[in-house]
């Protein structure tokens, strides 16, 4: 307290120090006048008083302003210097700002994804259970309700096992009909998660029994948006897909759990047939791992249970391998490699920026050697000079720190999409005080590092200038070799990511996305109950939409390609004995125009047609991957499959066509095996209901959204139309994460390359200036100007080569850690390494050659007289 109070007073008085002097003078004059009138002798009074000037000075000293004054002078001096050399100041400040701002932003992201506690009580206890497959690496797959029941009744290591499932629902009857991302959960779910309702209550035991499950919990955001934050919403009846539900509670703000959905939560109510099911896998399981129970213990129990299930249910669970993973780990695991990579990249850039600023400061200090020597000779203390140089770094730090805040703010916005979906709702990347303190720390660290070294070296070299030069060049050479090495590391990483990104963009998704518009249009449940009605409804809408001018095709399908990486079901092919784990295919329902609308090519047979309806023979179209897997070497046409495993007696379906593969699992993954059914023949398979309307337009699909929405509403005013998106945008989201990664890395790498070349440029310019006399002598002794250039460039090449060797060795050693970030490019891709080497060599040559040209212009006579 006292310390800060003193400083506050010191600065407050310092600001009006002019007044301070006059006041002191007046005060002393008053004293003397009084004394004089008392003793009637001025000389006496003066004698008793002492030396006024000295006393005034001592009074000022009491306030300790000398330091402040000289600091201000240093700052003014520094700013004047920066104004005189704007290139120096702007390069130093902007490179530090990019490195520090980028570093702060990436640290913030890493902190949010990897470390910030999740917004649930005791978040470390929360654990997820997935049902993996013994054969495939799909260890984070959904589980079946039957398996959940079995686990709930037998697991000892996890407590409060609960299930939940993302779903969708139509909210009608209150204003505009609306399609909402919803979720269903067991009655104990919220108890396990441990949060408290914002309003009302959560589910009670027994509310997840069919018939007693007409209760709903609203998300805070939905409550705000749709119900005007009305506290009397509790007890109100709302219509969800035409069924009445009673509102019993409101969730706390930003509540999400593992997936980015859940505007409405209803109980997961299933009859005995649901709870018996072990093959339809569509739910998530979560529980709490009590303190003292290790993850290994949980996994050991799950391994034992998996073995038991494999044994007890050979039909459904032959491949079951249950996996436990903590919620935090699951949320972060897909981003971990990417985050570590970005952190490493930004740290490399930071090192380069520091070394560059240090080298800039050093050059400046040496260039100002004469000035500093004069000041030293005039009596400035060595410490005072070091302080002056240090002030310069500090001013740089403050400026760079301020600018880096702007960089960080922009970068954070760019990085926001890298927050994993399950955390996005409650994780906004913002500049908070922790970030600011990280930032201040970084700025100070960088400038201390880059400022102190030259500051001491300068003071040092003033006395030992002759040898100082040699040391100095070696130091700078080492710094530049380091910069080159780091730049190569960054360039290699950036090139690999760039190749990955272009490879991804060149991947043919299997359909033609340009001009395609998609939207979600879920029919109310009542329509689903009557298949004929449902089909007629789709036909009416499609007819109306196709009538919109500019629309050349329209179809309904289960999903927009690549957006639903699920919907796999078991099938049985006639006359084939299929290997376990190879019997499920992605099942999609479509209306007849689907393949034409999306531009999926027909390979063999025929497409689904208007004639395939509820009354005709059951047909399906499969993709090439499926045809190849099930009927290798023969035609799939005319072959028969049925849904479910061999034991079920579902009706046979005839394959009538084979179409091209579609990369439904994402652009980076090969096409899965897919079966397409006419929606009219499978009205009961509601989980893959054709909820998406896909429309082919001539160009810029976004322009058609309103016309198409109107067309849909003309058929059914209460039909919800949501998520209207041009498909190219949907696909861009697929690659968004990699695009951001790539953009940031390329930005870092080009900054790094620029800085390394700048350093090289500086080194050579300096060398030319320093060796002027020597070069002049060589010239006088008969060397040609070109030989001089070669000599100077050679000294730069030495450091570049040394840096390059280290850099490439490190890149070759480290790039394999990037493997999971890459697509269709090997970590040691020779083309990438070659391109980096070429780029580096050419820029390095330019950076050396530009200043080296000056060696040509040296006049021997002049050079010898120089200095």
């Amino acid at each position: 307290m006292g310390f800060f109070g003193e400083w506050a007073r010191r600065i407050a008085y310092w600001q009006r120090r002019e007044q301070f002097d006059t006041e002191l003078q007046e005060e002393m004059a008053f004293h003397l006048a009084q004394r004089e009138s008392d003793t009637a002798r001025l000389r006496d009074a003066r004698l008793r008083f002492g030396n006024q000037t000295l006393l005034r000075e001592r009074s000022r000293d009491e306030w300790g302003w000398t330091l402040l004054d000289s600091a201000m002078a240093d700052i003014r001096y520094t700013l004047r210097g920066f104004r005189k050399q704007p290139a120096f100041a702007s390069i130093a400040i902007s490179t530090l700002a990019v490195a520090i701002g980028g570093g702060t932003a990436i640290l913030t992201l890493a902190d949010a994804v990897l470390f910030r506690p999740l917004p649930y009580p005791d978040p470390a206890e929360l654990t997820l259970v997935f049902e993996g497959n013994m054969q495939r690496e799909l260890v984070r797959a959904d589980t079946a309700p039957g398996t959940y029941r079995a686990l709930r009744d037998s697991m000892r290591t996890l407590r409060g096992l609960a299930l939940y499932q993302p779903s969708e629902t139509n909210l009608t009857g209150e204003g505009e009909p609306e399609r909402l991302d919803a979720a269903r959960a067991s009655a104990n779910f919220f108890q396990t998660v441990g949060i408290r309702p914002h309003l009302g209550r959560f589910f009670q035991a027994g509310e997840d029994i069919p018939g007693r499950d007409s209760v709903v919990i609203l998300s805070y955001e939905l409550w705000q948006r749709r119900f005007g934050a009305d506290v009397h919403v509790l007890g109100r009846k709302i219509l969800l897909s035409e069924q009445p539900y009673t509102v019993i509670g409101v969730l706390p703000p930003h509540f999400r759990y593992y997936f980015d959905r859940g505007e409405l939560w209803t109980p997961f109510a299933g009859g005995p047939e649901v709870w018996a099911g072990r093959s339809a896998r569509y739910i998530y399981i979560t529980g709490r791992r009590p303190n003292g129970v290790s993850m290994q213990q949980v996994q050991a129990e799950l391994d034992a249970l998996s073995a038991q299930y494999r044994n007890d249910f050979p039909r459904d669970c032959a491949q079951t391998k249950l996996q436990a993973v903590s919620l935090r780990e699951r949320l972060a695991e897909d981003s971990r490699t990417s985050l570590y990579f970005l952190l490493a990249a930004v740290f490399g850039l930071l090192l380069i920026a520091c070394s560059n600023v240090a080298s800039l400061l050093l050059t400046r200090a040496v260039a100002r050697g004469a000035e500093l020597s004069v000041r030293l000779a005039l009596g400035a203390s060595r410490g005072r000079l070091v302080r002056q140089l240090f002030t310069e770094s500090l001013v740089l730090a403050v400026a760079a720190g301020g600018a880096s805040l702007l960089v960080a703010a922009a970068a954070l916005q760019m990085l926001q999409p890298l927050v994993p979906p399950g955390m996005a709702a409650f994780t906004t990347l913002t500049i908070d005080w922790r970030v600011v303190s990280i930032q201040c720390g970084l700025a100070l660290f960088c400038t201390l590092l880059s400022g102190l070294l030259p500051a001491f070296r300068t003071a040092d070299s003033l006395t030992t200038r002759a040898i100082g030069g040699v040391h100095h060049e070696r130091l700078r050479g080492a710094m530049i070799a380091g910069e080159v090495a780091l730049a190569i590391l960054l360039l290699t990483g950036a090139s690999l990511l760039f190749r990955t990104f272009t490879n991804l963009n060149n991947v043919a998704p299997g359909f033609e996305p340009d001009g395609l518009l998609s939207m979600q249009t879920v029919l109310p449940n009542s329509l689903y109950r009557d298949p004929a009605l449902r089909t007629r409804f789709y036909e009416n809408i499609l007819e109306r939409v196709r009538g919109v001018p500019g629309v050349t095709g329209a179809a309904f399908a289960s999903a927009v390609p690549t957006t639903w990486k699920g919907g796999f079901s078991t099938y049985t092919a006639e006359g084939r004995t299929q290997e376990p784990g190879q019997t499920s295919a992605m099942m999609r329902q479509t209306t007849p125009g689907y393949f034409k609308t999306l531009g999926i090519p027909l390979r063999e047979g025929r497409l689904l047609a208007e004639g395939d309806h509820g009354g005709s023979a059951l047909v399906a179209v499969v993709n090439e991957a499926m045809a190849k897997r099930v009927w290798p070497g023969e035609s799939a046409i005319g072959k028969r499959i049925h849904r479910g495993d061999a034991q079920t007696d579902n009706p046979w379906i005839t394959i009538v066509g084979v179409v091209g593969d579609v990369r439904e699992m994402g652009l980076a993954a090969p096409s899965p095996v897919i079966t397409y059914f006419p929606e009219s023949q499978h009205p009961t398979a509601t989980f893959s209901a054709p909820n998406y309307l896909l429309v082919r337009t001539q160009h810029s699909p976004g322009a058609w959204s309103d016309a198409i929405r109107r067309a849909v509403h003309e058929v059914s005013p209460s039909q919800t139309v949501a998520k209207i998106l041009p498909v190219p945008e949907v696909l861009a989201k697929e690659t968004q994460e990699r695009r951001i990664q790539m953009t940031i890395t390329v930005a870092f790498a080009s900054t790094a390359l620029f800085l390394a070349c700048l350093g090289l440029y500086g080194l050579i310019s300096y060398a030319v200036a320093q060796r002027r006399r020597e070069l002049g002598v060589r010239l006088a002794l008969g060397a040609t100007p070109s030989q001089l250039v070669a000599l100077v460039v050679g000294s730069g090449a030495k450091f570049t080569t040394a840096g390059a060797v280290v850099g490439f060795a490190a890149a070759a050693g480290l790039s394999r850690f990037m493997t999971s970030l890459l697509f269709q490019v090997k970590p040691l891709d020779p083309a990438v390494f070659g391109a980096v080497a070429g780029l580096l060599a050419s820029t390095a040559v330019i950076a050396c050659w530009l200043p080296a040209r000056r060696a040509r212009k040296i006049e021997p006579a002049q050079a010898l007289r120089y200095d």
Partner: protein
Amino acid sequence: MALSPNIPPGSLHMLILKSLARLGSMHGYGIALFLEQMSEGVLDVEEGSLYPALQRLLLKGWVRAEWKQTENNRRARYYTLTADGKKALVEEMAAFDRVNRAITLIIHPTEA
């Protein structure tokens, strides 16, 4: 030298604080007069050295200053003890007493 050898070093602050504690609000000259009279002229202060000392007390926040009219209608800067100043005076006096007693014990062993 700031102080005549008569004044033990470091004690000027305490003397000023003590004077202000007695006088209430007072200007520099008044403090000088008070010190002179109270010490019966024994303590010889170089009067000007009051002013740097007063600045130090201002910095520490032990006194505050304001310009006022004197009885003879002249403008003078009056100093007043702050709450912190009163606390500091008590502490300094306690410390002074301790040192004083110790010195007395050494110089006149029989008197203690």
